[in-house]
């Protein structure tokens, strides 16, 4: 099977906008969760989030005018992709075949202009008919909506921006499978490379739902934390008193290459992706299967592709040294994910450290998986496991090693990264230390 390696990584997150800063802050167990200041959320059930700050996308592109005022998700993508591209060294590689250089992103939609939409819908509301007057709606839409902003709503727009920045003209896909999107994108990008359809793929995710309608939607689902206290304490995966997830935003991007291509240009692999598993719960639109059927299948399939027996040991230790959990801080996810890990790893489960970086930066939705995979690679490179913070009140039903509150040194050679999404989307990646 064609080996696929990671040669570049980059991220834009609530904890910072470069690899080193974010990594240091995660190792320090810092939280980026704070009061939302992008709009006045003070009356909303949830008033806090993990917000990207001090980020100017123009610093990450060669010529901003090429990009036609990108939406925020595209801005994040450009920022993360620049870091990954520069780290990979592909910009210096003159023989790069652009028709064999593609992208597979898990990007969300652009940011909806809630102020304009609320004005348009309410002003065109026909009280007698109890519905919008479509003629009036069209009139107000023409007056109030920014046309390019509406074009930028399409989830495939980050693909165009990233492609344009680097001239990539190979296979290009965008998937949007809720919170599992970027893990799925990376897994399928690996598959595109293994199928021989490309030499290089930029893959990852980008998303922000940190706007009034996004918070509204998740508040109505009662999926968001409404914690009444220090926002930094709100995201508490695996705690007994976990009360929902905290919204985040950002992007994680990776450069993936066939090992053959990386070798040919003298690149240094950062790690190797050795397994990808994907499954559908096919159960209910609102609930995970109570036995963790789908997540367990995804983890099991990913490990099988990596030729790893999760119940085996190497010199008395599990073959996987770290699991980056989906770990949303909802009652259901954290419970089912724990169950799935136990199902797959059996007696090894208590000995595999598991942590959730969502405790520190919130849930980056479509982008979460790619940022979490980068975390795994950083763990392999630095020998540090980042903690699950705010784990002061452990749930007695959840009895794995969640790396509570404090980062830990560890020899890490192989990691599993889980992402599960609304609608029963389950995706898992396995990444290993690169060995010749």
């Amino acid at each position, binding site marked *: 099977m064609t080996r696929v390696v990671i040669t570049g990584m980059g991220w834009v997150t609530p904890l910072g906008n470069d690899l080193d800063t974010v990594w240091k802050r995660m190792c320090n167990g810092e939280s980026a969760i704070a009061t939302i200041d992008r709009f006045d959320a003070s009356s909303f059930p949830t008033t806090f989030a993990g917000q990207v700050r001090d980020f100017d996308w123009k610093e990450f592109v060669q010529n901003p005018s090429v990009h036609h005022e990108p939406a925020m998700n595209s801005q994040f993508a450009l920022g993360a992709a620049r870091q990954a591209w520069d780290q990979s060294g592909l910009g210096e590689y003159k023989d790069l075949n652009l*028709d064999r250089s593609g992208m597979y992103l898990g990007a969300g939609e652009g940011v909806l202009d809630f102020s304009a939409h609320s004005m348009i819908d309410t002003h065109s509301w026909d009280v007698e008919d109890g519905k919008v007057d479509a003629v009036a709606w*069209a009139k107000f839409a023409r007056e109030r909506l920014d046309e390019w902003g509406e074009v930028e709503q399409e989830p*495939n727009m980050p693909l165009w921006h990233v492609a344009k920045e680097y001239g990539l003209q190979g296979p290009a896909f965008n998937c949007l499978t809720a919170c599992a999107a970027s893990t799925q994108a990376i897994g399928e990008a690996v598959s595109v490379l293994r199928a*021989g359809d490309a030499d290089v793929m930029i893959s990852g995710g980008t998303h922000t739902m940190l706007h009034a309608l996004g918070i509204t939607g998740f508040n109505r689902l009662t999926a968001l934390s409404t914690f009444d206290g220090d926002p930094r304490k709100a995201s508490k995966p695996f705690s007994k008193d976990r009360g929902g997830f905290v919204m985040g935003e950002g992007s994680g991007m990776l450069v993936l290459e066939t090992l053959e291509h990386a070798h040919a240009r003298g690149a240094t692999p950062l790690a190797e992706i050795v397994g990808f598993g994907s499954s559908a719960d*096919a159960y209910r639109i609102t609930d995970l299967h109570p036995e963790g059927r789908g997540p367990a299948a995804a983890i099991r399939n990913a490990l099988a592709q990596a030729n790893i027996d999760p119940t085996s040991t190497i010199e008395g230790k599990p073959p996987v040294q770290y699991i980056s959990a989906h770990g949303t801080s909802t009652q259901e996810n954290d419970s089912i994910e724990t169950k799935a890990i136990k199902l797959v790893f059996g007696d090894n489960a208590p000995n595999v450290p598991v942590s959730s970086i969502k405790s520190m930066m919130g849930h980056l939705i479509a982008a979460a998986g790619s940022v979490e995979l980068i975390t795994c690679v950083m763990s392999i490179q630095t020998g540090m496991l980042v903690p699950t913070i705010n784990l002061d009140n452990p749930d007695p039903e959840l009895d794995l090693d969640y790396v509570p509150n404090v980062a830990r040194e560890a020899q890490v050679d192989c990691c599993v990264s889980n992402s599960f999404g609304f609608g029963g989307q389950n995706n898992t990646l396995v990444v290993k230390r690169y060995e010749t």
Partner: protein
Amino acid sequence: MPERQEQVVISGVGVITCFGVGIGLLWDAMIEGRTGLKRIERFDPSGFSSQVAGELPEDDFKVRKIVPKSHRKATKVMCRDTELAVGAAADAVKSAGLTTAATSDEPPTIAPDRVGCHIGAGLISAEVNELGAALVTSKKEDGTFDLAHWGSEGMQNLTPLWLLKYLPNMLACHVTIVHNCQGPSNTITCCEASSGLSIAESRRVIRRGDADACLSGGAEDRVNPLALYRQHCTGRLADCDGSEDLQTLIKPFSEDATGTVIGEGGGIMIVESKTSCTARNGSPWCSIDGIGCRQSFADSPLEADPHAIESAINKALVEANCTANDIDVIVPLGSGIPQFDTAERDGLTSVFGDTLASIQTITTVPYTGNCMAGNGAIAISVAAKAIKEQTLPARLGANETSGLLASRSDSKSMSINKVLVVTPSEGGQCVAIILGRVEA
């Protein structure tokens, strides 16, 4: 080394368009040369410059009637796009002769964990009536919107599961639940290229051994004020109010083309390994011989790129182990958007040269409107039907076209062994798929 190159076929076709559910209704219209376009009836389109669409009357399709009793409650949280996908999927499963959780209590034809689902979806636009009804509760007396009231009270007027109606992966989510497909499931969101890219992914998933069959395709509803407005913003729509000759409204590859119109619909196909299809005595409609996917390098995401089109086709030809001379019929996007038509013609000319003008084409947009994420699936379904029937459907549009043999014509019988389906998209993705005749 690349993974195994197992042959993959289309063993079932499900279609939903303005003509109704089923490839038969669409095919009959295309044989007769009868467009399904009409002035929009779902809402008053007078405020828009483009007032015509391929619209499926809501009374002609009730999703509640086709889902199992256990899933009827869930239809309340389906948006129109999801309803279309569920309708097309049911049609596809029936077409392929599969038993699933939705069709009977008998054991499924294929084990649930060996069935994947890849459905292209669009940017699902919120129903303005549903959202407006909630928003208006936070309208102040002076007419402005009260965000503080919305946060504390107004949002309570939205149904709790409102967000779940509009997540793009809900098309695949409902389909996987209805048919109990537990294999890999994905949602490709690349505008018009979504369906073709979904089929590419299904084939890749099958070839890597993660599934034996996939429900694959796409669906989208653009007959909605917000969705229509968003297409208006692209500048791709034809100005029209329905008083025109709708048979010739969309003129693919004509110098008189003025743009496209929206539609709603899509298709789901059963993409299956030939081994699986043969083992269950299925009847393939056609084989998927080659696929090429490329990204545009045009100056705008609203422009198609001839190089991407050419490169995608060449990749598909190599995979199909054939040359341009082996292609009997081309199914381009043929949207009537002048820039897209020009790019398609230039890309095709680079591959086919002077012979392009003599190769028959099929264009679906003049019949159904541009169904965006569902459009490619409609095109591929019609291509599969043309291979099966060995018939070229009638073409609508202009009497004269430039570069391609795409002018108005009647249907006719012809030998069709290989069909090329090309789909460039808003956003710059392009997919080319070569379908082949499967000998009985």
